[in-house]
Every structure is written in C-alpha cells, then in structure tokens.
C-alpha cells in the first residue's frame, strides 16, 4: 500500500533536501523596485530615488533571468509548450481589451479622426508586415531543422529571425519618431493615445520575443539546445505575428 | 425507457410553465386606449420589492429547512458508519439537472419580466413634466430651472408633477440619490443621463445624497428636495424668475452699454 511505502520513504528522507531556487525571489524584488521607481518619478518627483531604484531593480531582474535560464535550461521543463498556449490566451485578452477600448471610443466618437491627428503612414506598416511574416517563416524553418538534428542550421535561421525582429523594431521606432516630429504624440488626442498604446504594446511583445530568442541563443551557441524551449519560443513568436495583423488592419488601414 | 419518457414529459411541462410565467407577467397593456394614470415608480418599487423578497425568502427557507433536516436526520449514529447514497440512474441524474434548471429558470424569468415592467416605468417619463438640468461638481448639486433660475443643493418642486433631471458633471462621477423616491443615477463628465420622480406631498422635504464615490467630501455632498403645493411653487417660481429677469436685463444693459457708446 502506498501508505506504508510513504512512511518508509519518510524515514529515509527525513533529512532529504528540498529543492530550492533563489531566482524567483530575486526577480520578484527586482519588480518591486521597478514599481517603486515609477512612483518616485511620476508621483513624488524624486528623480534621484527613481534612478537609484531602477539601478537596483534592473540588475536584480537581469541577474534573476540569467540565473534562472542557466539553472533550468536543458533540464527540460518539457511541458512549456502546452503552458505557452494558456499564457497566450491571457496575452490575447490584453490585446482584446485594448482593442475593445479602441472600438468603443471610435464608434462613439462624433468625428474620426479627431482634431489634431495626422494621416498615418501606409507604406511602412506594409513593409513591417512582410518582415514579420518572413520572420515567422524563418523561425519555423529553424525549428524544422532542429527537429531533424541540424543544430547549426537551427542557429543560423534563429539568427535570421532575430535580425528580422530587430528590423521590425527599427522601422517601428523610425515611424514613431517621424510621427512625433509631426506633432502626433501620445497625448495629442484619443487616436494618438490608442495608436501609441497598441503599437507600443505590440512592440513590447516583439522585444520580449527577441529576449526569449536571445536567452535561448546564448546557451545554444555553447551547444546547449533545448528543443522544448525552442518550440515554445517559436509559438510565442507566431502569436506576436498574428496579433500584428490585427494591429495593422485596425489601427493603420481602418 | 419508461423513465426517459417521463423525463421528457416533465421537461416539456416545465418548459410550458416557464413560458406561461413569462407571458403572464409581461405587460399586456401596451396600446390600450385611455391616457394611463401616471405610475409612481417609488410606489411600484415598494410593490416589486415586497414580491421579490417574498420570493427569495421562500426559496431560502425551503433550502434551509431541507439542509437542516438532512444535517439532523443523517447525523452519525451507531450502525450508520458510512454514507449510503444510492447511485443515481442515468435518468435520475439527468432529471436532477433538467427539473431544477427549469424551476429556477421559471422563477428567474418571472422576476425578470416584472423587473422589466418596472424598468419601463422608470425610463419612460410622462410628457407633462418639469424639466430641470443638473450639473454636479465637487461637492454640490447645481440645478437650473427652465427659466434659467439656478439653485444649489436645494430643489423646490411642485407636488403632483413629474420631475425630470437631466444630469451631467463638471469633474468626477457623482450620483443623485433620493432614497425617498427610490431612484438614483450617476452623473458624469461628457455624457447626459436622466432620472425622474413624482413628488406627492406638499410640505415634505426629501434628502438627496451623493451615491458615487467622488472624493474627500463625498459623504458631505447632500441636498434636499422641497415639495411645495402647486400654488406656492408657482408664486415662488414667478417671483424668483422676475428677480432673475431684473438682474439679467440689468446685466444685459450693463454689457450692452459700452457697445452702444462706441
């Protein structure tokens, strides 16, 4: 019976050690420091305290992520692919609620675009779409190669994806600065508010995606490839790609 | 098989009674001649409230009695060391879903239909009414009468005439809550909302209190509604209106003068 076995095991393991990891703790308090930094800067107008607290928070978080990945990478938390599915559900809801706010405001607005808007570019977003779709294909190719055991091929295509991702970010940054130059800032009117929030949120997801890729690339260069991790990262990237179609169609071309 | 047949029959019965409950409660008065007497939402509210309270009290008491009886009846006694709940047959298991569902739904729809009816009373304002616009702000209720007369935190109204408030706010959310008239609605910047009530007894005062958290002095944001007899109200309104006209024309003259000079 399970019962007696458990007892026996208990005696054996009376002093057995319990798994620990310091990194979740480190990251959490790094996040606390970031939250405080925001308050210092925006609420209490204490720039020095804000910088100090950022200076504590960011290294804590980076150290935490580095420690975590090196501790866990290759140990195959093999269920991460399925988990990413659930996580994407949550992420999708963030976008959905922002889009809902957008639709609500736009459909209730007396005139659209509201006063103060400038025409949004049409060409750049088309190019960005092409780039992002291409990056989805390259990462797919990378995974295929990894699946058949071609590690160096995997790294090559992964690098291509990363480069495409940075191109995307660069164009996005170019476009933002262009618009801001024309006087279209986050505070201009509702349209600008929504434009910068939605594209900004999407952009931050691109950043996170790239960070995940790089976190996987570094160990991979040292020969430590985790296929589960690679597939999970790829899934996230496809999601970011799909969201972009909504951003383009709703924000730029509608 | 026989069980299943019974089940279907029971379900059908439930469905029919549900729709009857709904139809029975739904307003059948639409379009019937004679101008209807004004329905006072506050009176109707008390009526529906009593009905719903009786309804949920019955449900609550039935459930509580059953629970208490089961707790008592099946307490541990010698010779009764484990539970012996019978295993439900498939038909019984389904019946225990379908029948309660319809019984509960029937009650829900009955309440919904009555609630809807009262809702129409609250939202359809009688045509013969006094219309007042209200602007709320931290922390006062500012009323404006049709003739431009303005008052703060005190609204004088004639007895017997429906009063409609069109509300907006200049800062945060506020809420014009009149407990005696069983009505409240938010006012907010950027939108216009409305509510109406029927003051009846001349000489009475009714508390108005802010019911939307609006800041530090939220709980001190209060006013009153003073009900006057129609004659008193008219006298007051005309007098104040005349005063207002005097000052207004004086002001107009004052602003018009320089224009003339130039």
């Amino acid at each position, binding site marked *: 019976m399970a019962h007696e076995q*458990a007892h026996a095991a208990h005696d054996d*393991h009376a002093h*057995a050690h*319990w798994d*620990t*990891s310091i990194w979740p*703790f480190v*990251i*959490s308090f790094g*996040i*606390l420091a970031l939250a405080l930094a*925001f*308050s210092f800067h925006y609420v209490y107008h204490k720039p020095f305290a804000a910088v100090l607290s950022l200076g504590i928070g960011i290294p804590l978080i980076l150290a935490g992520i580095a420690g975590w990945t090196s501790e866990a990478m290759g140990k195959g*938390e093999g269920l991460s692919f399925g988990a990413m599915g*659930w996580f994407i*559900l949550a*992420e999708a809801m*963030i976008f*959905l*609620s922002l889009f809902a*706010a957008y639709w*609500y*405001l736009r459909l209730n607005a007396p005139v659209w675009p509201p006063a103060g808007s400038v025409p949004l570019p049409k060409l750049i977003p088309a190019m960005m779409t092409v780039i992002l779709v291409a990056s989805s294909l390259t990462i797919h190719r990378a995974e295929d190669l990894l699946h058949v055991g071609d590690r160096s091929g995997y790294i090559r295509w992964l690098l291509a994806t990363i480069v495409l991702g940075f191109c995307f970010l660069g164009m996005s940054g170019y476009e933002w600065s262009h618009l801001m130059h024309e006087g279209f800032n*986050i*505070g201009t009117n509702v*349209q600008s*508010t929504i434009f910068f*929030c939605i594209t900004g949120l999407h952009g931050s997801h691109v950043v996170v995606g790239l960070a995940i890729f790089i976190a996987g690339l570094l160990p991979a260069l040292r020969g430590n490839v985790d296929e589960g991790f690679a597939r999970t990262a790829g899934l996230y990237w496809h999601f970011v790609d799909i969201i972009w179609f909504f951003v383009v169609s709703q924000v730029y071309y509608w | 098989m026989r069980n299943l047949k019974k089940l279907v029959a029971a379900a059908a019965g439930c469905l029919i009674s549900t729709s009857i409950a709904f139809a029975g409660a739904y307003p059948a008065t639409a379009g019937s001649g004679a101008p209807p007497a004004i329905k006072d939402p506050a009176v109707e*509210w008390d009526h*529906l409230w009593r009905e*719903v309270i009786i309804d*949920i009290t019955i449900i*609550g008491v039935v459930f509580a009695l059953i*629970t208490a009886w*089961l707790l008592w009846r*099946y307490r541990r006694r010698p010779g009764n060391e*484990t*539970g*012996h*709940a019978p295993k439900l047959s498939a038909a019984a298991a389904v019946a225990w*879903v379908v029948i309660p*569902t319809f019984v509960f*739904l029937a009650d*829900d729809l009955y309440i919904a239909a009555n*609630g809807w009816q009262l809702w129409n009373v609250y939202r359809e304002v009688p045509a013969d009414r006094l219309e007042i616009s209200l602007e709320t702000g931290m922390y006062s209720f500012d009323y404006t009468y049709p003739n431009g007369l303005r008052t703060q935190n005190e609204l004088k109204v004639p007895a017997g005439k429906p009063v409609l408030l069109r509300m907006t706010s200049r800062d*945060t*959310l506020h809420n014009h809550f009149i407990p005696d008239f*069983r*009505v*409240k609605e*938010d006012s*907010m*910047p950027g*939108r216009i909302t409305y509510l109406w009530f029927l003051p009846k007894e001349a000489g009475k005062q009714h508390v108005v209190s802010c*019911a939307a958290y609006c*800041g*530090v002095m*939220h*709980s001190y944001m*209060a006013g009153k509604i003073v009900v006057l007899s129609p004659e008193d109200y008219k006298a007051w309104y005309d007098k104040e209106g005349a005063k207002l006209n005097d000052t207004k024309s004086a002001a107009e003259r004052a602003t018009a003068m320089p224009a003339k000079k130039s």
Partner: protein
Amino acid sequence: MNIKEWIFTTDHKRVGILYLIGSMAAFAIAGVMAMMMRIELSSLGPTITDNPTTYNVWLYSHGAIMILAFQIPALTGFFANFCIPLMIGAKDVAFPRVNALSVWLFYVGVILALLTFFVPDPPDVMWTGYPPYSTITTGNTAFYTFTVLILGFASIIGGVNFLTTVVYMRAPGMGWTKLNIFVWCTLGAFVLQLIFVPVLGTAVTLISLDKYLGTHFFDPTNGGDVLTYQNLFWFYSHPAVYVIFLPFFGVLFEIVATFARNQVFNYKMVVFGGIFGIVALAGVVWVHHLYVSGMADWLRIGMMITTLMISVPVGLMLIGLVGTLYKGSITFETPMLYASGVMFLFLIGGLTGIPLAVPSLTIHLARTYYVVGHFHYVMAVAGTFAIFAGVYYWFPKFTGRMYNEFWGKLGFWITFVGTNIVFWTMMDIGVQGMPRRYYDYAQFPQFVSAHQLMTLGSIILGIGFVIAVVNWIVGAIRGPKAGDNPWGSHSLEWTTVSPPPHGNWPSPPSVAENWTPYGYEKR
C-alpha cells in the same frame, strides 16, 4: 528547520504554506482596517479621525487587500497549491520555479499594498479605482495600479502552471471524472483568471497612463469616455467573484463529502452543469455593476436576464452540496461546523443578489449598504468561513498536528453570531437608504444606533476570528500529533504521510479502475 529551504523553496506544499501565511497576514491587516472603519462610523461626525481621507484610505486598503491579497491568494494560492498536486497524484506542479515566482510576486504585491500606510498621499481610489477621480486625485494611483498588476501577474502565471499540471500530470488511471470537485472548481477559477485578469490589468494600467503619461482614454474633453474603464473593470471583477466562489465551494464539497462519508451527489451535474455553467455565464453579466452608471437601456435589461440565470448553475452546485448529506453519516468536527454554517449563510448572500440583479430594484439599492451587506454575506462570511473550514480540514495534513477542537468550535459560534449581527443590519439600513463609502452620515441621523450595533457585532466577530487563528498557531507549534488520515477520508491527499515529504509519494501513486475520491461505501 532550514529557513533557506523555506524562503527559496520551489516545493508546492511549502509555496502553498507561504501563501497561507501571507494571505492570513493580509486578512488580519485588512480586518484591523475594518475595525477602524467600524469604530469611526459608530458616531456621527469625527470619532477617531477627523480627516475623511484617512477613512477613505482604510476603506481602499480594506477592500483591495481583502479581495486581491486575502481571498484570491488563499483560495487559488494556498488551497490550490497544497491540494491539487496531492489530489491528482503528482509529485509537484509542472513548473516549480514559476510557482515560487508567483508566491514571491504575491508578497511583493502585499508589500506594495502595505506601503499604502507609510507613503505620503496614499491611494484613496477605492478598490474599484473609477476615473475621473482616480486620475485627478492627489493620492498615489500608481500604487493601486502596480498592486493590482503584480498580484494579477502572480495569479496568471499560477493559473498557467496549474492548468498545465492538471492537464498533463495526473496519476495513471486518474480520469477526468475522478478528479476531486475541488480540482474542477479550481480549474474553472483559473480559466476565469486567465481570461479576465488581463482585462483588469489593462484597465488599471490605462488609468495610470492617463494620470501620469497624459493619454486620454477616460478624458471626455479629449474624446475619451469614463465608462470605458467601468466596463473593463467589471468585465474582470464580476468573474473575480466566481474566482472566489468556485474554489471555496470546492473546499466545501471536500469537507461535506468527508464528514458525511458519502459520495458527492450527482457529480456530473455539479461539474458539467454547475462549474461549466458558471464559467460560461461569468463573462456576460458585468453590466449589473453599472445599472446606475448610465449604460444603454438594452444592456441593462439584457444583463438582468443573464445575471438572474446565474442562479441556475449556482443552484445546481448547491443541490449537489446539500444532496451529499442525503443518507450520509455526519459528524460535526470544526471543519464541518464551518461548512454547515456556510450552507445557510451562502443562501442569504446569494439570494440577496437576486434583487440586485434587477435594474429597476437596483436603482434604489445600488451603492447602498444593502450591496455591502450582500457581498459581505457571500465573500466575507461564506467565503471566509469556507477558507477557515478548509484550513481546519487540511490542518492535520500540512502541519502533521491537531488543533484544539473546543476552541475551534467556540471560535465558530462567536463569529457566526457576530457576522449575522453586522451584515444583516447592513442590508437593513441599506434598503432604508444608507449610501456606502461614507465617512460621515449627518444627513441620515436615524442610522446611528444601527451603526453602533454593527460596531459591537464586528468586535464580536473579530474575537471569533482571532480565536481561530490563535488556535492554528498554537496547534501548529504544540498540538498533538495527528495521524495521516484523521478524518478517514478516501481522497488521495490523505494517503501520504502528514506532513507530506518532498515529492509527496516515494513512488508515483496510481489509482484503480473503480476508485473515486468519494468511494466510501466500497471500502
């Protein structure tokens, strides 16, 4: 005891206990805030503070902490963590490190919430944080935003973790219809969290963006709309009440089945009718919090019907719970006493939601103490009692020791009396027109004696809670050793030793063809 192995632990049981300690501390603090409010309200005019903002900060922290840092973490943090892997026969959760991250983020959220009492210009936006007030107050709205965001994120990663765990890590033979009701309930709650917390996160982020970065989401002078926030907020916060309700009902099912030594009445009805029904309806009723907010009429009527329909799945779950008593063999140890209490008190709380669901009645009742009474009955009474019942019930499992039965029962009866005095009176004065969130009520002098009665009652109920918590602390330190299965339960978590070792079982358990967690008769 190795303190490092506690703080940096990744073991689900220890993470769970960290959750329990944190959420109980939050409960104590928010409870003290409630006491301060009650004392303040015991007389007209200033009583212990002459600054309304102080009262508003108490109220803000009371509401936000009780919901976000006490009940949700206690239920989806402690109970889920401690019980789910044991109930499904897994040796841990899918991602132990993520689990540790989630508990420490929870602590960070609690720390942020507690800093409220120490920073200048603390947040005073109420737990709902409605703009425009939250974007123009001098209070620190950023703290509100970050508290919610961090606790929300902790909860999302917890949800991802547990859904993955239950889907992939069940013991051999553990089919979907053999899961404990508690596991099903918690799954439902986590699905709700995953879908709806992000919406809340967005909503509270947007108010800080509006306030500090100059965006215009809620600013009508620039094309924004204040109602956007209320819709987003309640789109989460209504489902949130079922995030509380589902797990606490799950706990009750475990307790009632064990103490009636009976199988759960109509298991499939409870799971597929009750839990699935609630999850399906939870997202389409939020406008019932906006009945007097100026929403379109058709939305108010539509959501009246959906809200009333929630009584169907909830009613099915209640039938399942009460039906489990039928032909049982019931004993009344402390956990069962609390659970029986809930069976009655939840009726009051749930049924008083019915008038609130009807917009034409809510037009008088909304934002009064009637609402406060309603939700204290369902959450503060039914929910807290269920949490206390659950802690008592699994106490021998997670501490290996026994609490004191006499003090347990005494604590129950004292709280039972106290809660009814307080929260029944609330509903009574609410119907008579007492608005909520009032620091003072000079325009309603007729309610002074009722408020004094409530203050008295709240002291009584507070004493009851303190007795319970002290009972646990003393029991955990020097209670008599409890056996591995003191209640004679049939469920899987009781088959290992108390407290369970790292890894839970020496060899992974598997369950037989005809095993169910409630198979008392077959034994």
